[in-house]
């Protein structure tokens, strides 16, 4: 009889994950702190062309890139004279299950089928579950989706309830759990019991699948306008969307395109708190994932995360919940595109960023997602009210996550709010230093940390020494 207690299963995590991903992560470890990121990514054999071929077969990708003329007009109505970049959106809702997550799922499920697994398991409350379920259905594989859905009262947010419904519609078994990080334990136990493939969001497959999105954007903009986009805004949560998009943009030769991250600002809410769980209206694309996954990417369900957002992020903008809901309304009213609010996080950031850019510059929002019952501003705002959150019109800067949602009372209220990237890099380094015990770094480790933080080697060394001195002083 196998011991399936919490401690026993967690102790077997390494072997369970190796069998469930087909990747021996130990092959890529270097000197303790570092690992061979490029080696790990290339080991799975999916460059942009290979990923695109799998996706084409699965009916994924090659979504329309739409110029948002009236939205741009609205930006120019509130921007300083001469400002107001042209805004484009990649309509990823056109993918089979309604989001860009199909790109990641296509590769993971293809890989599972190729390797002879009978089924796949994904732990996610987001659109990725539906994507994996959809791809598994199309390849005749069984699928289990594990979702964090409800608090201890059994109350679930309409958005996640909808995602659960969608997974079941594709024939998946949906394990719906209460709030808590032990979802990872249930994932491991389920992988072990079933012998299925782990369609983790953080394997090289799941990240390589996104590269086609960045590649399509950069290539199409170059074909139409003779140069790459000036900036691409990416909704950032676990880091795969940003990492994969950036890799694809660079692979298309768009070396000067700025990569801008955007997250819904939920600072102050604890993501593992039963009480806070239903006081947020966004279940992903928010700082509760975006910040920790940037500063400690390996905190995930695989030993080494293929999503390394700090390597590519050049700016990080925060968006309030009210701004994302507002932009969902704006997109519907000005462009005739009714899409899901979570996918419009980057659109809200783009609306702010475009006001700082010249009128001849090109700004691309790299996703939309499907909308429907539950995944809709009206349903989500009604739910927020039922949980005691106030909803009003005014200045979105006054919004307090978990207490209030403020719908902008004018588009001019939407302005850039930056999260300090150097602060994130320092926090990243502090975590590494803590785990490494503050010892001296090898040259391999220093150059690895330089790539991880986009800081020059000298800066990494100086910051590392300062951390060591502070630790010694304590």
């Amino acid at each position, binding site marked *: 009889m196998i011991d399936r207690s919490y401690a026993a299963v967690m102790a077997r995590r390494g072997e369970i994950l190796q069998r469930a991903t087909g990747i021996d992560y130990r092959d890529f470890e270097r000197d303790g702190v570092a690992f061979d990121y490029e080696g790990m990514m290339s080991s799975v054999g999916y460059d942009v062309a290979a990923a695109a071929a799998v996706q084409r077969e699965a009916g994924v990708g090659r979504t329309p890139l739409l110029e948002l003329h009236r939205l741009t007009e609205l930006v120019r109505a509130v921007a300083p004279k001469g400002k107001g970049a042209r805004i484009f959106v990649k309509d990823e809702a056109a993918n089979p299950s309604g989001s860009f997550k199909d790109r990641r799922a296509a590769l993971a499920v293809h890989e599972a089928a190729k390797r002879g697994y009978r089924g796949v398991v994904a732990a996610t409350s987001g659109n990725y579950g539906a994507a994996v379920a959809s791809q598994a259905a199309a390849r005749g594989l069984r699928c289990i989706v594990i979702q964090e859905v409800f608090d201890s009262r059994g109350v679930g947010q309409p958005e996640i309830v909808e995602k659960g419904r969608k997974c079941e519609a594709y024939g998946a078994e949906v394990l719906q759990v*209460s709030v808590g990080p032990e979802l990872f334990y249930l994932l491991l136990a389920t992988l072990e019991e079933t012998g299925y493939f782990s369609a983790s969001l953080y394997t090289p497959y799941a990240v390589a699948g996104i590269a086609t999105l960045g590649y399509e954007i950069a290539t199409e903009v170059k074909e139409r306008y003779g140069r790459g986009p000036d900036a691409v805004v990416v909704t950032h949560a676990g880091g795969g969307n940003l990492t994969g998009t950036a890799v694809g943009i660079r692979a298309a030769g768009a070396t000067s395109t700025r990569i801008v991250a955007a997250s819904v600002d939920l600072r102050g809410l604890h993501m*593992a708190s039963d009480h806070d769980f239903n006081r947020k209206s966004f279940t992903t694309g928010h700082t509760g994932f975006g910040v920790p996954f940037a500063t400690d990417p390996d905190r995930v369900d695989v030993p080494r995360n293929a999503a390394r957002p700090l390597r590519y992020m050049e700016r990080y903008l925060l968006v309030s919940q009210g701004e994302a809901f507002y932009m969902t309304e704006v997109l519907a009213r000005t462009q005739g595109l009714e899409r899901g609010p979570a996918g419009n996080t980057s659109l809200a950031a783009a609306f702010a960023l475009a006001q700082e850019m010249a009128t001849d510059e090109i700004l691309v929002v790299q996703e939309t997602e499907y909308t429907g019952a539950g995944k809709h501003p009206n349903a989500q705002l009604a739910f927020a009210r039922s949980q005691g959150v106030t909803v009003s019109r005014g200045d979105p800067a006054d919004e307090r996550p978990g207490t209030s949602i403020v719908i*902008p009372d004018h588009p001019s209220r939407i302005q850039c709010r930056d999260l300090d990237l150097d602060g994130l890099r320092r926090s990243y380094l502090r975590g590494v230093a803590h785990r490494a015990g503050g010892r001296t770094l090898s040259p391999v480790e220093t150059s690895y940390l330089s790539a991880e933080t986009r800081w020059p080697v000298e800066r990494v060394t100086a910051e590392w020494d300062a951390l060591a001195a502070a630790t010694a002083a304590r």
Partner: protein
Amino acid sequence: MKATRGDHVRIRWVVLRPEERPDGVPADTRATPFVACVNGHLEGPSASIGDRVRVRTQIGRVLDGELVEIGPRTDHGFGSPQPELLAAGQQLREILP
């Protein structure tokens, strides 16, 4: 109301009791059990809400738990149009004629 063999039902079970939850979980969360629910078709004889039952899920896995719903529903919808968004929509018409 009773569920009979083959009916589509929802079950719930405790994965970890509060005392089995690991350190580091926030206190309010740790005060409650970590529970799971799944939908499936009832195996075995008829059962009532609250009974310990076995179901077969859509992919054929067999799982045990407490019967909590017969014919599980999803009641999420679109809600009613929110006044703050309706006002925003009207304002857009004024800014962009």
